[in-house]
């Protein structure tokens, strides 16, 4: 569909991430490192999962429950990896804080911690977009376009870019929720992240039905906006809390 369309689809999937990167992440080198390492962790998780599922491939294309199993197992694995990632981050936070103490610099602020979580989430999201959307985009730079029978209203590349954008949003903000949830011991936050991830994954199975993408994709965006809202609420709460906390000490 020509170079214009190809760039268009790439921007759709990764445009907002690019904006986020430019405005927040690129200011602090440590955030860039965090982003890269979380991308790596996500890719490694994919490699492990593909290794586990290799004997069962190729899956029969006209039954949906093997795919449900695939999604379930992948989500479980990735959520446990997320917990491990958080543990590693806590260790790192301790190291950074003690280093800061030694050179008499301030410790990590709340905003710093939130930004690190955001970078981690963005890493996951970008990896997802690159893997599931950008890697398929090379033919889109040629003259032809492609329509899938089961989603015949929009080109295949457009649908895949829209879905990738939704997942980028979900991954980015659920990492923030998860880190706060683990740090504060908040059960709700801890549970909601896997639930969101799982439901998003399962919603993609709706696309199997004929014209299912008409229902599946809006629902996916509903989940994404829910994630965004919950994250926003949580961050706002924490900011108010920390302001109230730090307020009395300054006075």
């Amino acid at each position: 569909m020509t170079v214009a369309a190809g760039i268009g689809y790439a921007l759709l999937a990764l445009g907002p991430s690019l904006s986020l990167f430019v405005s927040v992440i690129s200011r602090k080198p440590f955030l860039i490192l965090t982003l890269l390492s979380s991308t790596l962790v996500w890719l490694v998780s994919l490699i492990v999962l593909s290794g586990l599922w290799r004997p069962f491939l190729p899956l029969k294309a006209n039954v949906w429950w093997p795919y449900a199993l695939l999604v379930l197992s992948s989500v479980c694995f990735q959520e446990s990896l997320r917990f491990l990632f958080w543990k590693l981050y806590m260790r790192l936070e301790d190291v950074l804080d003690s280093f800061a103490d030694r050179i008499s610099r301030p410790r990590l602020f709340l905003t710093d911690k939130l930004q690190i979580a955001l970078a981690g989430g963005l890493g996951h999201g970008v990896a997802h977009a690159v893997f599931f959307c950008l890697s398929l985009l090379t033919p889109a730079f040629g003259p032809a376009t492609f329509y899938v029978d089961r989603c015949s209203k929009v080109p295949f590349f457009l649908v895949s870019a829209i879905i990738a954008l939704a997942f980028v949003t979900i991954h980015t903000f659920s990492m923030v929720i998860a880190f706060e949830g683990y740090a504060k011991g908040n059960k709700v936050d801890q549970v909601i992240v896997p639930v969101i991830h799982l439901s998003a994954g399962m919603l993609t199975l709706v696309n199997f039905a004929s014209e299912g993408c008409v229902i599946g994709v809006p629902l996916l965006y509903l989940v994404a906006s829910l994630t965004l809202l919950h994250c926003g609420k949580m961050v706002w709460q924490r900011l108010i809390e920390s302001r109230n906390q730090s307020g009395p000490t300054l006075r």
Partner: protein
Amino acid sequence: MAMGLPRLVATAFTLTLVSIFLPLPFSLAGEITSIESVPDLQRLMYVAVDGYPCVRLLNLSGEIGCSNPGLSKVVAPIIKLKDVKDLVQPHTVLVTPDEMEDFFTRHVPLVSNDLSFASKIGGVLIESGSSFQQKLKGLSPDNMFPQAEFSPYGNVEYKWNPTASSIMWKAYNFPVYLLSESGMSAVHEFLSKKERKHKTYTSDVAEFSMVMETTKAGTHNSEACLQEGTCLPLGGYSVWSSLPPINVSSSNNRKPIVLTVASMDSASFFRDKSFGADSPISGLVALLGAVDALSRVEGFSNLKKQLVFLVLTGETWGYLGSRRFLHELDLHSDAVAGLSDTLIETVLEIGSVGKGLSGGINTFFAHKTRVSSATNKTLDALKVAQDSFASKNIKILSADKTNPGIPPSSLMAFMKKNPQTSAVVLEDFDTKFANKFYHSHLDDLSNVNSSSVVAAASVVARTLYILASDNKDTSSSALGSIQVNASFVEELLACLLSCEPGLSCNLVKDYISPTNTCPGNYAGVMSGEPSSNPYLGSVSDVSRFLWNFLAEKTSVQKGNTTSVCSKGSCSRTDQVCIKAESNKEGTCVVSTTRYVPAYSTRLKYADGAWTILPQNTSDSMGMVDPVWTESNWNTIGLQVYTVQHSAYDNAVLVARITVTTLAYFGIMVAKSFITKALKQD
């Protein structure tokens, strides 16, 4: 806030449950082509279509055939011919077999005077198969009198080929492609998908890669393109063999020769789909059947005359084979060592013999070049042979006296060279062609009757025996022992006239390793230097098969010792190495079988390049020779895909850039908000 959380959690749980159970009611009916990799996706997007192109051919005065008009691929939306109405931009027209003749004779000539339709044809796709209507009417893209400029008599307006449309001799400035069966189903499947998609934003296009080098180089006739090296002359290798083998070293006691001629090349509008079943392959198969029958007869060396079998190629393009053969005879060259012009007493050509069967009787017509004792002998021999069959289902009749002369055949070239030639051509028609598909892509196996070919082979075999023994009182038992193997003839027809089994049939694989399965009986180009001992890679599959086959059938076994040969050379000079391809190690047999190059007498090969010799009044046929050449090309292919309208693409790009910038601003707002909130203390 506390109230909001349980609500959120509840919503999330409901969503999960819903998402798990939502796919259940949807059925997953319908085919899924699973895409497992990006190359798979590309293959689904760009559908390669199988077919046969029409290519660019040139002669001394101009060009014929088809090609891309410029240097780039032609991309044009596909439209059916019946839907064509007021086109704005060039389209690819999809033509059914019924509409083909009409399209080229009526719509396309409007090209030169009616500019509106001309510039609207981007490319043409012809569907394969033929309708019942077509089978009744017939379709021949050749002229009414094919190769009339070589006729030895004056009446060139005589309509030998009544179903002629002459479309293959015109030049077209757009690519034309004949779709194969698989190609046609691919295109139809592709077009049917369109009904389910957005018609307004997409169009299905065909992309033709048919750029001819002569168009690129701007050389538009044979002389210019041969000089630039952007084309090659048409030609090939004819094969002759003698039964029994001739002792080349002893030039005395040479017996008079009875020469039997057939041709192996045909042509059609589409380069690679020209089986030429009735014209001329039926004649070739009859000759091979006769050779096979005669090879089982003992005592040929005791007969009074020498039999020589000659299979010519390039006959469709100005009688290249016969002209070059006669020229080589004049030069007494190596290619024709053992033969001599003066020794050839009579010539019998086997033309189209595949349609002689009617009402259980096979009828053939003997057209003679002139009245002479030699032709009378041939006609008498044919009559005796006809009567020798117990079943009495073969009839040989003399051609109608109102015919202006012999029909278009290699004998026209023989006559023009030497008007005293005594020759007879055997055909399945009298006053006009019985073949309604002369030089058409539809002249295939279904257009010939194998029993007609078997009958022709039988009568020719016996006639040749009678002529060779020069004794009209040949005993019926001797004649009765000459039997043509009908299953051999049928197998050979399937090998040379179909793609399954085609040239990978056992019969052919016994002698050679074919490079293609589908026999393309188009003469092809002369690659490399022409010689009587050519590099076998430049010789076509059919020529090599004929050489090996004739060498084996006309060979004499000197005792039981058969030596093996590798690299194609035998110790004795009267031996040739046959079957050296398939078995890697061939067998040496005593046989006189040679290749004779077939190319225009106006061409000369020197220092790796072809040059056109000036006109020579002693070569009357060279004066009217168009000197056909074929353009070179890089790739020829066709693919179809769907294209989005550019307005849509640009809208997509604009939308995305908007989304990205909006997101950027949103983030900036959030950042300033957070900073403000933090600074509030």
